[in-house]
């Protein structure tokens, strides 16, 4: 499940920043914030194209794990509580596979340039 804030929450902050820095001399801090805002727009673009498929697949896997139908938030809360209490174990192959797929999908939206993610992609494509 993608973390909050969602793209629809980030974009108004981008718009506010762009309005705030317009007309200012480009101080180093304003340049930095502009780059952060550009990254946020890129993230929102990826979320718009990948987010629905990622959420649907994650929900399908969770429903398979629990054998019941519910929304994504409810299912994630149930899995988190089961892992925390020890009722379910992360080393269970189905759960381990689910956790990896979910995190990799999240990174494809959040931070596709993260070094550990890039290394993972290289290793799986090289096999």
């Amino acid at each position: 499940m993608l973390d909050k804030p969602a793209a629809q929450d980030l974009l108004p902050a981008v718009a506010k920043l762009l309005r705030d820095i317009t007309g200012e001399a480009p101080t180093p801090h304003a340049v930095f914030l502009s780059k952060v805002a550009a990254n946020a727009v890129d993230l929102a673009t990826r979320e718009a194209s990948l987010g629905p498929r990622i959420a649907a697949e994650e929900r399908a896997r969770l429903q398979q794990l629990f054998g019941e139908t519910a929304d994504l938030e409810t299912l994630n809360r149930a899995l988190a509580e089961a892992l925390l209490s020890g009722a379910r174990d992360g080393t269970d192959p189905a759960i381990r596979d689910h956790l990896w797929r979910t995190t990799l999908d999240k990174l494809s939206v959040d931070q596709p340039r993260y070094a550990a993610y890039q290394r993972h992609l290289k290793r799986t494509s090289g096999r």
Partner: protein
Amino acid sequence: MVDRESQLALEVALTGLADRLGPPDSVIRHLHRLSGGASQETWAFEISNSRGTRALILRREPFARVSTLQAGLETEAELIKLAGAAGVPAPSVVYVLRPEDHCGRGFLMARLHGETIPRKLLRDAPYIAARARLTTDCGEALARLHRITPTKPLPHPLRLAPGSVRLKELHSAYTDNGLANPVFAYALRWLADHLPPDPSPRLVHGDFRMGNLMVDEDGLVGVLDWELAHLGDPMEDLGWLCAPSWRFGEIDHPVGGFGRREDLFAAYERASGHTVDPARVRFWEVFGALQWGLMCAGMGTLFMSGADPSIERGMIARRVSETEIDLLDYLLPKSHGGDHA
């Protein structure tokens, strides 16, 4: 962004302070804010008077504030003095602020020559020799730091927070943010199952990592930001220094993005006379990865509540998934593995 009025007020207050401390012809020059969050600020400036010019750093909290996790700036100043006396590279504390100075709470220290920006230190040519030394420098500095025993009471007693207490804090951070994150939940469970026995408590820096280390061309010159110091498990500092979040892309160099664990442990053992248990450090690396993940999630809570709706906060919150892949590499590695195992 810096509020012009508060900067002007600070300049006036510092001029008055400089006049009381030195010749009454002091002028404050080049006052500018270096960094800081909502509560703590770091400023650089120069005092010029008939005796000459001195480059100084001010660490301060403009307003009184109570935080359970932070040692307080007066205590931080005392710890930096103790560190310097114990042979830990540290800036020299010049003056601790008093209420009549009207500068808030905090202290002045001499400005060190060096660099703190991790990406420069890890990649730029002028720091090649420094990078070769830095692992040994860090191991020795940590060994000396962990030997420090205050000889007189500190302004505020340090909190006692060994692994058992620190784990409860992480658990609360998870619960308080209302998270439903299966990877974080599994990591919390793993940490509870692998919590090592609390050792006899030592001084722990609490934030010993790239970004808080001042380095020049020859190596480590200053350990900064002592605000999270506490009494606890000294291996927490080694684990935090090696946590994946502080490697800044150089993921195959576990020590801060520049060194090897075995070299850090060897330097620490030589300087301290104590054997390092790699499994205990690994516990603290996993702890560190989750701690940073929960800090990111906390930024999301601040953003969504409207308490800090800045784009910076919002985007840091979307780095939670970075810490998830780091935790999975530690705890549920794929067959091809990471370097964590």
